[in-house]
């Protein structure tokens, strides 16, 4: 039975009358990388800020290491590292000074690992923050977080200002933490990133978690895309159970080519029936997180 690092139950947060979080419930187990995805304004940052004791929840509970996030903020934070999406730092300190300060605030020191990270991320630590771009400020926070020895790492869209090269270094370091058995909460927009690194994901939309599970679990819920060419006309295919988005590709001799999607549950039964149409060629693409994402986002409220 693996230990739970994070436990959120029915978390709610209001800003005045506006309900930013309506009902957030999910867990992160020890050693797990959890991907937290959702459109802008869905409530990812709000959730994370509650976890950090920066905002006070209006209802529900959130626990990290089994302790209440508001009550025991200080003791939780001693074993936690956090990188926000927008990093704002004191303009008249240098990057190097801030990295050291952040480490000291967690009773840690500048180590060889810190130097290595500074090199990896290609940061000039002697420059004043005033002269840094958004990406450079993000690097400061990332270096400080990665060189902090913690048990739980929270990243809130940490690569939004980084170039692809730096993104890769970020991913490499996350994988490094993962291999060390650390637990990670990664809120992200970059689906390939989440797909590559996360064991489980949670999808949030308008302040509600609408799906959690492993990527495989979710693929199960999604539709595979087929491109099919047959000898026999295949209009009737659209009537089959589990076939959606049927788009015929018109030829001179009638409809012999089409694209469509099939629910994962029905793949077997659909495939059995395809043989009867005399297949010339068939292609299938597994659903990506993108498809999944789009599918949830495009749903009108209440249609699920």
């Amino acid at each position, binding site marked *: 039975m693996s230990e739970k690092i994070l436990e959120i139950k029915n978390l709610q947060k209001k800003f005045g009358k506006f309900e930013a979080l309506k009902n957030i419930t999910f867990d992160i187990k020890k050693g797990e990388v959890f991907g937290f995805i959702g459109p802008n304004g869905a409530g990812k940052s709000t959730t994370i800020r509650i976890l950090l004791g920066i905002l006070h929840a209006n209802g529900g509970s959130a626990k990290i290491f089994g302790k209440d996030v508001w009550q025991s903020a200080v003791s939780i934070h001693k074993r936690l590292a956090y990188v926000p999406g927008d990093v704002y730092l004191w303009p008249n300190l240098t990057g*190097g000074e801030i990295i050291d300060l952040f480490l000291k605030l967690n009773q840690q020191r500048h180590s060889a690992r810190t130097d290595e990270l500074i090199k990896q991320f290609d940061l000039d630590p*002697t420059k004043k923050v005033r002269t840094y771009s958004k990406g450079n400020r993000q690097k400061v926070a990332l270096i400080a977080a990665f060189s902090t020895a913690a048990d739980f790492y929270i990243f809130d869209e940490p690569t939004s200002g980084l170039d692809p090269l730096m993104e890769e270094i970020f991913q490499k370091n996350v994988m490094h933490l993962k291999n060390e058995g650390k637990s990670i909460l990664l809120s992200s927009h970059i689906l390939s990133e989440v797909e590559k690194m996360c064991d489980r994901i949670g999808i949030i939309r308008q302040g509600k978690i609408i799906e959690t599970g492993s990527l495989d679990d979710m693929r199960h819920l999604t539709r595979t895309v087929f491109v099919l060419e047959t000898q026999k006309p295949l209009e009737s295919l659209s009537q089959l159970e589990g076939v959606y988005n049927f788009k015929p590709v018109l030829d001179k001799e009638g409809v012999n080519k089409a694209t469509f999607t099939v629910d994962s549950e029905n793949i077997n039964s659909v495939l059995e029936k395809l043989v009867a149409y005399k297949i010339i060629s068939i292609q299938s693409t597994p659903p990506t997180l993108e498809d999944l994402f789009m599918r949830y986002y495009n749903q009108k409220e209440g249609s699920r």
Partner: protein
Amino acid sequence: MRYNLFNQTGYIIRFYLRRDRFLIVGWLILIVGLMGGAAAKFDSIYGTKAALASIVTTLKTPAMKAMFGSFTAKPPYTSAIIYASEMMVFMGLVFAMMNIYFAVKNSRTEEDNGTLELIRAHSVGKLSPLIAVIIELFVINLINGVLIAISLEFAGMTGTDILGNCLFGLGLAAFGFMFGMMSLLVSQLANNSRGATILSYLILGFTYIARMLTDVKNTNYTWITMFGLIEKLEIYTENNWLPVLYMVLSALLLLFVTIFASTHRDVAAGLIPTRPGRRNASFLLANPFSLILRLERISLIIWTCGLFVLGISYGSIFGNIGNLLKTNPSVAKLIGSSAIKSSNHAIILNFAATLSVVFAVIATIPAVITILRINNDEKKGWLEQIHARGISRSNIFFSYIAVALLCEALCLLVALLGMGFAGMSAKDPVSLLRFLRAFSGYLPAIYVVSGIAALFTALFPKIQNIVWILPIYGLFSMYFGNLLNFPKWAKQLTPYGWVNRVPLKEVQWNNGVVMIGLTLGLFLISYLIYSKRDLLES
């Protein structure tokens, strides 16, 4: 498409004016209210010949020259002449502060926030934003000046004339505009808004002190102190327009230098370059307290030095003030030499008591700035990383408070010491220790002000700036309280008025203990509120 240096200037001006309209109206109410309110009272206070004669004698003493500027008018005196001479220096200060505020806000702050970059990215001329600020400042000063003239005309004090009223308003407007241009130039040199503000105030302080020294020692030199120009208008007597011309010319000169400087630098960079800094944090930078101290380092040094210099400047005129033989020989002849010495001391200590309030008020400014930074830094997102580390809210909150309390105590102390040291040059000097009574007397009071600032920070983060009313009103009631016959309660509205006239009188220790208790209570309540609320976001 037509594209030049001044493209869209009109649009930006309208944008600035619309955005700043409440702030502009706020300053207008403050300035015209001060001018009009005082004008309405002057006739009743200085209605009699005797009252006029006694205030003229007072205004001619060196101590009063130091505060209000030299009194040069010739008889017959009217309440309008007294009014002009009492109000001018103080209103000049207020105008300069308003101009520094808007100049820095709409040039440097705009750049720091990145707003300017957005504006420039549109089809906007390279110089348009700067020209827009210049014109905005011009408009603000002009409106203030015209409204002052109108309100003076309406107040209708004895001895006013329409030319004098116009000169009063427009003179102040020109003076303000000149300081606005100075601050705009400074904004080009400094590389952030805080630096620009500090540098502007340093220059203002420097010109103010120069004006004071020349007023007391030799008024012929007051002309060249920039600040002193405003004292040379001779309103309601000669109505001299020449200084206005000088101020406008200085403003134009500063304006051209500013434009030149701005075309020679990049957005968000200063002309004073930034050097590479430390690779690692010093061992001192290790907790919120040392962090805030480090961030406030420069301004702490500037405030401390500034107050020390201010103290020295005032102390250096003690020789002129505490010299009955010179200032009032007829009285001096009547009393014996030991009596002369003790009355000299009394005059000095009385003046020192007035100055102590000034020092106390100024010393609270850096402290209040530091306390209000709790929310300001929070809004900028600077504290998010600290909160996310193993640092408690009480640690953060009380670190700011501790830096503030330390800073104001230091500022008050050095100002009094500076005054005491420089006062040694007087013929019968007062002992240095005597001045420290003002330290023990005023420290609890300025701590209460800090406590109130903390309460505002916690309770009303959105309107926390209202707390500035305390020092502003404190300074005002100290400056004008006696001259305008303020009732006792009106002087005691702020904690500055709760202290007796130290160092002339003995320190009221029990009073101080009560104020310290009150301070502690205020901090505690503030913390309890602060610890329960959400962090602010921009």
